[in-house]
């Protein structure tokens, strides 16, 4: 094929404004899985170890830790870590079912992603009611 006969290659439009693109539910769950994972590493692990140590150290340390967690900021921190853990856990279970080749159709992948979001919010609501 002569050069002149080739179809004109036009530059393809590149549109990657992640804020403006309407993300499908599985994409939202996917990025939230990653964000919650990062936050659980950065804040969750040290908070968990600190809490276990304080709970076990002495009755006074237990009381002090309980007061810290019962303060407004402490409750927000507990809620954040618990919701992050629950979301990450549910999204992970969904991941494992996908690995087992279950729910791979677009429709079921969408509904399972929505289920992860809704279920984690419901469980977080239970935690919130217990906290406040």
């Amino acid at each position, binding site marked *: 094929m002569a050069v002149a006969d080739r179809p004109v290659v036009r530059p393809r439009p590149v549109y990657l404004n992640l804020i403006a693109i309407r993300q499908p539910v599985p994409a939202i769950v996917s990025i939230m899985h*990653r964000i919650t994972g990062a936050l659980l590493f950065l804040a969750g692990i*040290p908070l968990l*170890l600190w809490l276990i140590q304080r709970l*076990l150290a*002495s009755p006074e340390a237990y009381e002090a830790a309980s007061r810290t967690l019962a303060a407004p900021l402490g409750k927000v921190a507990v809620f954040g870590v618990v919701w992050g853990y629950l979301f990450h856990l549910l999204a992970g279970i969904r991941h*494992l079912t996908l*690995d087992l080749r279950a729910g791979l159709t677009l429709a079921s992948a969408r509904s399972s992603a929505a289920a992860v979001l809704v279920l984690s919010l419901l469980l977080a609501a239970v935690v919130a009611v217990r906290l406040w």
Partner: protein
Amino acid sequence: MPADRQPVGAHYGVRDWLAQRVTSLVMLAYTLLVLGIVLWNGGLDHASWRALFASGPFRIATFLFMTALLLHAWVGVRNILMDYVKPLSVRLALQIVTLCALVAYAGWTLQILWGHA
């Protein structure tokens, strides 16, 4: 090492992929165990937590959970760094910081579980 392989790359295998799934199941089992204990007792006070952590099997279970958690965190954080941090020197530095933090957490865990038994 082939030219397209980086020393801070993914090791190009399924080992980490599999480890991420196995560790998740260990953590799921421990989460259900602790949740069950707390709900069964209607919440635990200081004495009950101490009694629980005085049990050898529970300490081992906690140690397994923390080991799984730290391995899981390593695979996850490294995936994030490989996706978003392109300069290899910065990526290597952040991986070293992450590893140091995880090893430090492992030491903290050992101290909590068996430090002053």
